[in-house]
């Protein structure tokens, strides 16, 4: 048991070290003179070598050893770092990683000798200095030297330990206790001796215990000294790791060997790393368990809160409030333990980028922003592969060859930028390259060739839609969309994997300038905000990620609003047909309970998005949003694709969580023909594309002209009975929310110079009962009401096609929703209205 624990710790630590090595080597290549990095690389390899030595992984040790020799030359400045050496060292890291994998699976370090690699490394070494045969034993003296020369050894009851330790320490000494083990010892003695001696020297092991362990070895225990010590609980793995780290060995002032030299430079960092003793390794299963328990605690808390509301007892109220706070805090903290910075997976990308770039003869620099952005562990794991793929893709397909870049007036070195940031419960990860961008015509052509689109459809697509076509299954990179071979995983797999964890992928590209792929993922999967709906007598939870909006149809609308396309129900949502799905029907819930509900004529449509396509889910009722803890369904129910899991509600009852994609699939929402699907996809993209598209309020201005204003300039929409309009001086006003709201008639405000120069009455005589449509805007800090003819709609559009305005107060004319619309310039209109008012000359004439 002890053995496997040591090995497990060794593996975990080594993997971390290797990841760091990748990173350090690549950064070293850029800055070969950086001694700190070199020393750090050296130390890392040394630690691996040392540890695997005492665990008995000879082959691994050998490979690490050759690498270490090369590194020591580099550090001493005897060999200059060049790409060839970096490549060799990186392949050594790979070899070590491979062997670690082997150890993890079989417990052995495999059969591969990596002779070629060793030869290469040795050759690179001899390029400057002696061959590996010379350097190999060169380490031994240093090992022997260090413990002996260390002052503490002398102070630490000098006589006894010396006697006990020395046989093992000196590989040549085949006397005393170690004699029986001599043959074996000569191979591993350097490490053994070091460990035994150093543990004693540091007071981590008593000399008697060491003697005991050595005796066991002598009696035929084939295990390494370190293993024996740990299995007898005479020492701890950490302690062994501690002494096998070179910085500690370097405490020896007189040490002449390679290792000792690393000491000086490393001392500072060693101390810094010593600080990491404040962290402890905790099993992931334990963390998962904690998370589950906290999830249950949250549920219990919810139940308690609900219960305490029904009791008239101040004590219970106080306790439950306290419990509430503590639980929330606990939940937050436990969530944090599972959070990992995205840097953990990004760290391997410099290496990936380097390899791919060298492979396709490109020069690429990688930049990272927001490395510290944290994500739930499970999500970090889940996005690792998709991200790797995207990064490779960007280098492979995105960034051009240096010659091409130069010709286009760009820096020959391409830049790949990784950016991560939080945004409202989500994390956005962007992979930005400054490459050639996506050739939209080629993508379009491909889509037509593959029958994904017809020519006519393709012509209507926006750039963004075209780019996102790449994410479709038929469009794997292997199909040479961008001329380079694929790598097994297509972009569709990236998309599927990201969507599996509730994320989305979006591509933006500017020809000649580069491509940005944005991956948007939730922070955590365990606790999600959800909308609770009812259907039949049961509640169902819908994760809010897929929720677009809610629509409620009342009275007559409920009857007329839903139309049929050959039997398939649809609803016109802002001019577009939204396919409707009855949850009741999909879940095959009998209509028994329907009778009582008949009085309630309203129809609740939950507009959801599945696979980029919106559809309306009709439910009996909408209750609330709630944070729910997702629990998996048992094996017996896993087969039902309609449900993603279950959760326990505040009242202690179980509610099923709808799998929106599953529901959509079941209802065949996704099986529509492309043509019909295209519309909805377009709409979905519009929703996703908020930086380009704006939401506009459409209304009718004077003379039935179609006008619009950006919704964000609007504070509120109000309907005021005309009878409420009063006059204050020359200004039409209305009492509104305890204040006086000045009213401006758009018709008047728009006329640049009215011939009559007087305010027309806001309300025509005899029409006092009429309702005025008032757009309440904030103008210079005060609300102003703009009276318009009629409010038409709220739409989202890019308003791309523009035409200069023909009159003041209008920004421009634009095509919104396929119709020419005047975009009103609110500040100008209001200012104009104000000055008119303030202008005494006008005041005189306006009555």
């Amino acid at each position, binding site marked *: 048991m002890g053995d496997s624990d040591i090995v497990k710790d060794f593996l975990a630590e080594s993997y971390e070290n290797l990841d760091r090595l990748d990173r350090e080597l690549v950064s070293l290549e850029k800055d070969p003179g950086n001694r700190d990095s070199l020393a750090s690389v050296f130390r890392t390899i040394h630690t691996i070598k040392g540890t695997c030595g005492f665990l008995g992984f000879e082959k691994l040790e050998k490979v690490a050893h050759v690498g270490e020799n090369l590194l020591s030359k580099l550090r001493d400045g005897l060999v200059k770092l060049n790409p060839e050496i970096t490549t060799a060292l990186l392949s050594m890291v790979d070899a070590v990683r491979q062997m670690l994998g082997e150890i993890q699976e079989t417990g052995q370090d495999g059969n591969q000798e990596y002779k070629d690699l060793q030869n290469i490394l040795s050759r690179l070494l001899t390029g400057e200095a002696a061959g590996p045969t010379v350097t190999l034993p060169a380490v031994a003296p240093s090992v022997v030297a260090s413990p002996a020369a260390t002052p503490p050894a002398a102070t630490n009851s000098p006589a006894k330990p010396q006697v006990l330790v020395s046989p093992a320490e000196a590989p040549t000494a085949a006397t005393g206790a170690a004699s029986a083990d001599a043959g074996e010892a000569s191979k591993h003695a350097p490490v053994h001796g070091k460990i035994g001696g150093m543990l004693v020297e540091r007071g981590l092991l008593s000399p008697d215990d060491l003697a005991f362990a050595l005796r066991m070895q002598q009696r035929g225990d084939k295990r390494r000294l370190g293993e024996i010590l740990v299995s007898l609980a005479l020492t701890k793995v950490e302690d062994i790791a501690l002494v096998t780290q070179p910085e500690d060995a370097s405490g020896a002032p007189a040490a002449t060997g390679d290792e000792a030299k690393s000491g000086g430079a490393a001392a500072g960092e060693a101390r810094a790393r010593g600080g990491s003793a404040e962290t402890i390794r905790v099993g992931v299963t334990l963390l998962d368990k904690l998370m589950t328990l906290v999830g249950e605690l949250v549920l*219990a808390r919810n139940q308690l809160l609900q219960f305490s509301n029904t009791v008239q007892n101040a004590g219970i109220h106080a306790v439950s409030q306290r419990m509430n706070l503590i639980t929330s805090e606990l939940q937050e903290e436990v969530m944090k333990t599972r959070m990992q910075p995205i840097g953990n997976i990004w760290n391997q990308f410099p290496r990936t980028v380097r390899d791919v770039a060298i492979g396709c003869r490109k020069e690429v620099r990688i930049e990272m922003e927001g490395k510290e952005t944290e994500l739930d562990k499970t999500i970090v794991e889940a996005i690792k592969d998709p991200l790797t793929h995207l990064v490779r893709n960007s280098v492979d397909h995105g960034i051009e060859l240096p010659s091409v870049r130069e010709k286009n007036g760009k820096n020959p070195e391409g830049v790949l930028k990784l950016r991560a940031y939080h945004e409202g419960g989500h994390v956005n990860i962007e992979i930005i390259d400054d490459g050639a961008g996506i050739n939209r015509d080629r993508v379009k052509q491909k889509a037509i060739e593959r029958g994904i689109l017809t020519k006519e459809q393709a012509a209507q697509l926006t750039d963004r839609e075209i780019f996102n076509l790449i994410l479709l299954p038929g469009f794997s990179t292997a199909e040479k969309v961008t001329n380079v071979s694929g790598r097994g995983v297509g972009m569709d797999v990236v998309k599927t994997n990201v969507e599996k964890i509730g994320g989305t992928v979006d591509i933006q590209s500017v020809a000649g300038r580069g491509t940005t792929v944005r991956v948007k993922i939730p922070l955590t999967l365990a606790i999600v905000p959800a909308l609770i709906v009812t259907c039949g007598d049961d509640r169902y939870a819908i994760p809010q990620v897929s929720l677009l909006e809610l629509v409620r149809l009342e009275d007559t609308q409920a009857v007329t609003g839903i139309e049929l396309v050959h039997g398939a129900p649809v609803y016109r949502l802002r001019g577009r047909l939204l396919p409707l799905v009855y949850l009741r029907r999909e879940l095959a819930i009998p209509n028994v309970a329907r009778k009582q509900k008949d009085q309630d004529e309203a129809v609740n449509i939950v507009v959801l998005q599945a696979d980029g396509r919106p559809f309306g889910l009709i439910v009996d009722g909408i209750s609330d949003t709630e944070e729910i803890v997702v629990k998996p369904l048992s*094996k017996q129910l896993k087969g039902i694709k309609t449900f993603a899991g279950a959760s326990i509600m505040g009242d202690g009852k179980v509610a099923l969580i709808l799998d929106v994609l599953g529901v959509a699939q079941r209802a065949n929402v996704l099986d529509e023909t492309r043509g019909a699907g295209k519309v909805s996809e377009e709409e979905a993209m519009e929703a996703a594309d908020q930086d380009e598209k704006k939401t506009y309020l459409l209304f009718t201005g004077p003379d039935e002209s179609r006008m619009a204003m950006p919704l964000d300039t609007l504070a509120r929409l109000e309907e005021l009975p005309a009878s409420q309009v009063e006059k204050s001086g020359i200004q039409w006003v209305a009492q509104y929310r305890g204040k006086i709201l000045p009213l401006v008639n758009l018709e008047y405000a728009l006329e640049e110079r009215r011939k009559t120069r007087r305010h027309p009455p806001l309300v025509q005589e005899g029409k006092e009962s009429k309702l005025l449509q008032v757009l309440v805007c904030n103008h210079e800090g005060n609300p102003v009401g703009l009276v318009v003819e009629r409010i038409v709609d709220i739409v989202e559009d890019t308003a791309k096609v523009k035409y200069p305005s023909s009159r003041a107060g209008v920004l421009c004319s634009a095509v919104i929703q396929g119709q020419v619309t005047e975009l009103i310039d609110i500040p100008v209109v209001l200012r104009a209205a104000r000055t008119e008012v303030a202008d005494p000359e006008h005041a005189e004439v306006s009555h």
Partner: protein
Amino acid sequence: MAQTLQYSTFLLDKLLFGVELRQVQEVIRYLEMTRVPLAPEVVSGLINLRGQIVTAIDLRKRLELEPAAEGSLPMNVVIRRDDGAISLLVDEIGDVVEVDEDSFEPTPETLRGTVRTMIRGVHKLQGRLMHVLDTERACEMGEALTQGR
């Protein structure tokens, strides 16, 4: 001397059934259930077992017995399984009985159909027979039924 085995017993349509005691996590009264639409018929719903969500299987349906009388509330026999607990809904809970290995006899050949696979055999108790339920099989079929949905 023959080994003795402990069984937790329960009644289903007046028949006495037994489940090996070590498989039983707990026995609890009726709990409110949330039905699972589209699930196999034998799945009665989901129960909240102290924060754990457990699937409840209607053992009467599973064993092709007559449905229980209207209004009668079944009890839960919660079975421990590798992949989480499962509740078997039964009419009534009986005692824990200790039986001799010798009193066991395999299911007679005359019992046919799917039920046969779920009943390992019977223990001859005094005055009545105790059916030994194969819980694995009883729970497994539920999985098979969901396939293809």
